């Protein structure tokens, strides 16, 4: 078992752990941040598998764009919830 094998096993274990954590965590914000970490580790694995194009694309797209879209979605959901609460308070007053 060479050093590269140990490194591979470590990365695979990290990917599995971060995937499980992203699926199980209670707070959506924390789970999204763990999903970003998952994407970065995945891009390292792809660089290791001799696919540098995939590594660059995944690092830019998975950890960058799609996570940002999910964060903006959470923000938007919070805005909608706040607006509904304001309307309800107005009705009560």
């Amino acid at each position, binding site marked *: 078992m060479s050093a590269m094998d140990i490194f591979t096993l470590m990365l695979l274990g990290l990917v599995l752990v971060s995937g499980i954590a992203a699926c199980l965590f209670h707070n959506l914000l924390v*789970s*999204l941040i763990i999903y970003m970490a*998952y994407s970065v580790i995945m891009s390292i694995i792809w660089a290791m598998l001799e696919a540098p194009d995939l590594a660059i694309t995944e690092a830019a797209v998975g950890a960058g764009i799609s996570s940002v879209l*999910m964060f903006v979605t959470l923000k938007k*959901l919070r805005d909608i919830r706040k607006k509904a609460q304001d309307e309800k308070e107005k009705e009560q007053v």
Partner: protein
Amino acid sequence: MLENLWSNRIPCAAVLLFALGFSTLLLHPNLIKKIIGLNIMDTAAYLFLTSLGYIPGRLAPIIVNGDTDPSHYVNPLPAGLVLTGIVVSVSVTALMLALTIRLYDRYHTLDLDKIYMMARQEQGELQ
């Protein structure tokens, strides 16, 4: 058998990730978690495809010093296919997030079961 599993450890990790994403997609009631599960399924499938093209000791398919011997480079085809897939998965994610926002605006919850029940109740009231 165990030897095969050990030498195929990267596809095995891809299978585990696929199962993780699939069970999250099926069992978790929260819509955002379902989207994360689908993304994990996507990357697992891409990891499996990439590992099929990987051969240890060979270089990435970028030709160095005019050496065009195919036995010196890994398989370029899976990388090309997966590259297309990654960008398509982003557009699918964006579409699903937009649908989630619309559903939340209508029903004020992210729980798919509650949404389903409310939709059924509305249907019942209409009839």
